[in-house]
């Protein structure tokens, strides 16, 4: 894998896959740690719908937050560090089990509340 990485072109809004290649979401946010006298380092990469909507403005983000509260298990967004990245190319593959991570909260909520109840949704 080549050394240089452009954070906007190659990382932001890139598809994130979990250990079993299942789509987890897109990189909606990048946490950059600014340090005194040392190069800024990427502290975390974030996959969270509300973070994405916040890029459009605070009002939109508040709406997204209200909505997300119904299915979010724990309040804070899903973050992973660069060291967890296993493969980096067209998509970013990370060492995480998607099923149990925050981005799948909506998926689980829908499965229990709606899909599970409809016959044939097995």
């Amino acid at each position, binding site marked *: 894998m080549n050394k240089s990485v452009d954070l906007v072109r190659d990382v932001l809004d890139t*598809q994130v896959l979990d250990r079993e290649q299942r789509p987890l979401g897109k990189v*909606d946010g990048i946490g950059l740690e600014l340090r005194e006298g040392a190069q800024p380092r990427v502290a975390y990469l974030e996959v969270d719908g509300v973070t994405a909507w916040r890029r459009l403005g605070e009002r939109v983000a508040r709406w997204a937050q209200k909505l997300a509260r119904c299915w979010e298990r724990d309040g804070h967004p899903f973050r992973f560090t660069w060291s967890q990245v296993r493969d980096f190319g067209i998509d970013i593959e990370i060492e995480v089990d998607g099923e149990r991570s925050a981005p799948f909260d909506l998926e689980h909520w829908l499965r229990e509340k709606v899909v599970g109840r409809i016959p044939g949704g097995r």
Partner: protein
Amino acid sequence: MKKLLGITLGIVTSIGGFLDVGSIATSAQAGAAFGYSLLWAVLLGTICVIFLVEMSGRFSIVSGHTIVDAIRKRFGFAGFIVPFAATLLVNLLVLASELGGICVALQLLTGIRFQLWALPVGLAVWLLLWFATFDVVEDGTALLGLVTLCFLVAIFTLGAQPRELAAGFVPRLPSEEHAHYLFIAVSIIGATIAPYLFLFYSSGAIEDKWDKSFIAPNRFIATFGMSFGSIISMAVIVVAALALKPEGIRVEEYEQAALMLVPAFGRWGFYLFVASLAIACFGAALELSLASAYSVSQAFGWNWGENLKPRQAARFSMAYTLFIALAALIVLSGLNPMKLTLFSMAITAVILPLTALPFLVLMNDARYMREHVNSHFSNIVVLLIVLLSAILAVVAIPLEIIGSK
């Protein structure tokens, strides 16, 4: 051998899937009001859609991405959200028109008002998506869609004059009713270059796991599939011109369009029209619901795929469920189906640049396309037709609104 099957299937599905409520309604009105003189609009739309469909197949094959997925990555969330929302809204209007088309077909058959059919028809479309897999949905409806070939047969039984037909391909304004002529031309182009067509095609290429060996077949499918499909659309114009125009019948409601196959097939004509309308709209409704669920899932990075059971892709399945429900409500509200269809097609032409141009940028980005980037010729063709139809639409819609008051 598998490739050959893939190609023939690709062409068949494009023929069956090409015609929808938009092409039937706009072509019927065009033929009845202006005879052959709007054939050029279908041709123009077809040329553009051939390029766009070929490009969307090549894009998925080479980059491994779908279009929506890549537009977000290339332009960022804030840059992508406006074209995305506009396309979704138009998809909803077009889906409502498709469901409306099925309900009207049932109204013609039974006399029961179309609104009462809205929920049962919405449920039928939803049930097929909920229980069937991608192949059944795509291939089944397309094979049924071949019934629309009856319009082609009707041309020969009604004896169209080739010389007059050719004249229809030269664009020229009629002596009067310029505004309405322009509006129908734009609606035809919007009906022919429906964004969901190439978004669906690009997701299908990923779903069918097309690899590099499919680049040539993809070009073949796009060219022949779309051209055969558009020939049927042109046939509807010709049949309307031969069967309705001489009688002085202008198509304002589907009840009038339903007469157009009677001169060619007698008692069967009416039933063939109703079957074509219902099947074409049913196929298009399925494709449109899937295309919209695909684009929402690809925009937010959810797992997607019609081959996945609803439990495996709950967000994807709920996306098309919500979409169908909203569209059914629009039909239930009793909006005039023909007017809704024509305006949805015209609005499709207005927002076409918002989808086609970002896609054009992607097709010229070496990071995605490597050596398969677009040729200058296809860039120019797509750009010209897309901008032309958008400008025409922005002019035609207000005139039509003023005219019809």
